[in-house]
């Protein structure tokens, strides 16, 4: 989850709308679906060796390119192998649940593919001054789908329908914001599809609604959520509704986030249903297999709760417009180079430095051939660097590229845990004049840097610790 929440009353006040309670999660201008997917992937893979995962599926309706996938870059940044399968699932809000279903199919069908990381991420931009603004929110979630023994949770069945809905939509190359012309028709498609797939999964598995402990299905307004629960005859508290009030309508990752939220107090053998909607629907039936293992997963990563705890509210609506790049203004950019990005992939994306075989000093980036400390030549070998560190010195730069764009930028010299000194810009910092300090603990986060050469140039930044283990 991004760090910032937009209180809905700020939207109401901005447009003289009836005030709606709660907040919604808002990505900053240096975040997009891809960077949040990296964040979710890092959290999900905490404690796993990324080199052991055989694939990555990325699900989003807000992919950062329309030609060029995101999964391959996310897998690179997560330091996964090259001989893996990657794919983007896009254009439908059910892309997340569809990707999970296809991950299961793929693992079942291929003896060489034993695990796939499925990451769903969305940053849907509502048109300002429309009621969509109360809903659309930003977030990402990842599920590691694998075959093997003693897994915490099993996927027992899944079922989908495909429906040609009449809204909402975004026309390719034309629409910046989502459109629809008949919200009542949209709701009808939603009720029909989402209940149909869940009922069918129950039927196929001879389950009664009361046998389901938790239902994590997509919704974009709390009233419709309640109606679906009633239609499904779920017992009270089964339908997970923890998300909308604080975080909003998160799009493709929403069923994942509801599901993860349902694991806070897992019951043994609990049966859980997860469903996604969009041009049809998917329902996935899961069962708790190892309650302790499932609980441990929650303890050893930030998960949904750890993120929620570290979110703060924006103070004004204009900052939100700025984050969403709705306002026309000059933004920092610089040259880019395809060759440099390719040659320096290990340093810039995978976060490798080098270690001197002669004196042991760890340094960054992998660029120079002689050691900074002992000056030995060609004794440097690649080493994976840590994603946390401590600020050694810093400044707040008001003069970025000769322009005063989104300044000041905190420039931080960070000593990484485990070795290596790096220079990182800081993000997610309020009042840097007061809050950036020598000795401050920081975490690394992968962010959008600039769009030089009309290309998305990403790099690492640091941020005040949010609680990543």
């Amino acid at each position, binding site marked *: 989850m991004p760090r910032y929440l937009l209180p809905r009353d700020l939207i109401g006040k901005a447009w003289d709308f009836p005030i709606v309670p709660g907040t919604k999660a808002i990505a900053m201008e240096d975040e997009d679906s891809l960077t949040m997917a990296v964040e979710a992937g890092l959290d999900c893979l905490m404690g796993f060796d990324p080199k052991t995962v055989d694939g990555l599926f990325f699900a989003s309706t807000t992919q950062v390119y329309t030609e060029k996938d995101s999964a391959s870059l996310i897998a690179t940044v997560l330091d996964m192998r090259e001989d893996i399968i990657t794919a983007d699932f896009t254009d439908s809000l059910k892309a997340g649940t569809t990707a999970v279903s296809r991950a299961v199919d793929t693992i079942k069908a291929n003896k060489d593919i034993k695990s796939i990381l499925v990451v769903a991420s969305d940053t849907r931009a509502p048109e300002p001054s429309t009621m969509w603004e109360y809903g659309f929110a930003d977030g990402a979630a990842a599920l590691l789908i694998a075959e093997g023994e003693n897994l915490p949770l099993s996927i027992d069945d899944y079922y989908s329908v495909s429906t040609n809905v009449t809204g909402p939509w975004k026309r390719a190359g034309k629409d910046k914001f989502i459109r629809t012309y008949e919200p009542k028709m949209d709701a009808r498609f939603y009720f029909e599809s989402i209940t149909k797939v869940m009922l069918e999964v129950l039927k196929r598995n001879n389950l009664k609604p009361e046998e389901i402990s938790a239902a994590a299905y997509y919704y974009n307004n709390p009233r419709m959520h309640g109606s679906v629960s009633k239609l499904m005859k779920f017992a009270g508290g089964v339908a997970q509704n923890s998300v909308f009030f604080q975080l909003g309508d998160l799009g493709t990752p929403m069923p994942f986030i509801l599901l993860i939220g349902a694991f806070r107090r897992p019951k043994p053998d609990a049966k859980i249903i997860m469903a996604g909607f969009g041009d049809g629907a998917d329902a996935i039936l899961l069962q708790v297999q190892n309650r302790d293992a499932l609980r441990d997963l929650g303890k050893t990563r930030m998960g949904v709760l750890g993120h929620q705890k570290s979110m703060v509210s924006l103070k004004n609506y204009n900052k939100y417009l700025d984050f969403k790049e709705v306002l026309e203004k000059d933004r920092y*950019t*610089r*040259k*880019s*180079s395809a060759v*440099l*990005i390719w040659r*320096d992939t290990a340093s*810039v994306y995978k976060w490798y430095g080098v270690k001197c075989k002669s004196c042991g*000093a*760890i*340094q*960054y*980036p992998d660029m120079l051939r002689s050691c*900074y*400390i002992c000056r030995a030549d060609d004794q440097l070998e690649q080493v994976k660097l840590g994603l946390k560190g401590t600020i*050694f*010195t*810093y*400044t*707040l*730069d*008001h*003069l*970025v*590229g*000769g*322009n*005063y764009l989104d300044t*000041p930028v905190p*420039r931080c*010299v960070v*000593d990484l845990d485990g*070795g*290596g*000194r*790096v*220079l*990182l*810009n800081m993000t997610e910092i309020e009042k840097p*004049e007061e809050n950036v300090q*020598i000795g401050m603990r920081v975490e690394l986060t992968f962010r959008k*840097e600039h769009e*030089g050469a009309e290309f998305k*140039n*990403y*790099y690492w930044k640091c941020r005040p610790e949010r609680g990543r283990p």
Partner: protein
Amino acid sequence: MGRKGIKDKVAIIGCDMTKYGELWNKNQYDLLFEAFQGAIKDAGIKKDEVDASWVGIFYYFTGLSGAMVEDILRLDGKPSTRVENYCASGMDAFRNASFAIASGAYDVALACGVEKLMDEGGSGLPGFKQFGHPLYPTPSAPAMFSMAATRSFHEYGWTKEDLARVAVKNHDNGADHPKAHFRSRITIDQVMKAPMIADPLGRFDCCAMSDGSAALILTTPELAESYAHADDYILVKANAISCQTNFPWYVPQGGPGAEFTHFPATEKAGEYAYKEAGITNPRKEIDCAEVHDCFTITELLNCQDLQFCEKGKAAEELKNGTFNWDGEIAINPSGGLKSFGHPIGSTGCRMLTEITKQLQGRAEGRQVPDAKVGLCHNLGGAFTVCSVTVLGQRD
């Protein structure tokens, strides 16, 4: 250092500089032409007596290659080389010209520098969107030096007021210099209240951009006896450069400069120069110095690194008047970069011109009383390149 070095083998027989400032009505060709004409007039020579030239230019838009000298001065195809070494470009041009004289390759050499920054606009040094790697952060120049200020505050207990005193002193000196870009005296309060450029450095902690040029004519001491300044030509006692990393923020703990409270380039260049000049107690033996004050913190740390005072004591020494123009060792009696601005390629030659005139007793601004030995110092890049030149009177 080589076994012989260049001590007392090179003489400065003429020098001059232009007015520094936002010179919209002049181009780089005017500036170098005027500095050169002033220098040959000072030396009492004709332009055809110059055998070879070295010109310090940092930015490509000021001019590429040694051909800049030919275009501007029309020396009939004589050899000329452009020197780029960050803020030390001008002093490195002088160093190369010195070597040419010391080796006997040429009888008369021109060392000069020019930079035309103000045609590019005034919001910080240009080019920072093009330099370097597309993804690694590229801090602005003030941001680079601010990281040393933050750490020095932490380690030495210095404050923003300690930095402000550097600006106040230098602007006070510069107010008397007819060629300075800025000639207003300022107060500590003004410095403290100025807008931030890169915390903790505000506007008055940073030198300005500027246009300007300076030129010096070099020959051997033997030949100098037959030129206009036969009685008061100035001798090069030492000239040293040290290069350190372009990326001080990547130097791991324990590596050179990793503390951000000193500049290894300045320390080394100082050591090399003192060894060559035979100086053992810089504070006592040097009377005046033009020390790179691109930012206030830079001057304080450089004074320590050049052994003018103990580490951590520069702020206190400054407060006590040690570095005033009439103090124990005059630092930036001209007003420094703070008063002149910093047309990068020219600054080293401007400092050399300034100290030459100080030692000749004909300083254009404040004359340091009884100045016999002087030092010039540049520190460029991310504390990357340092040039130190020691000048002295003839016997």
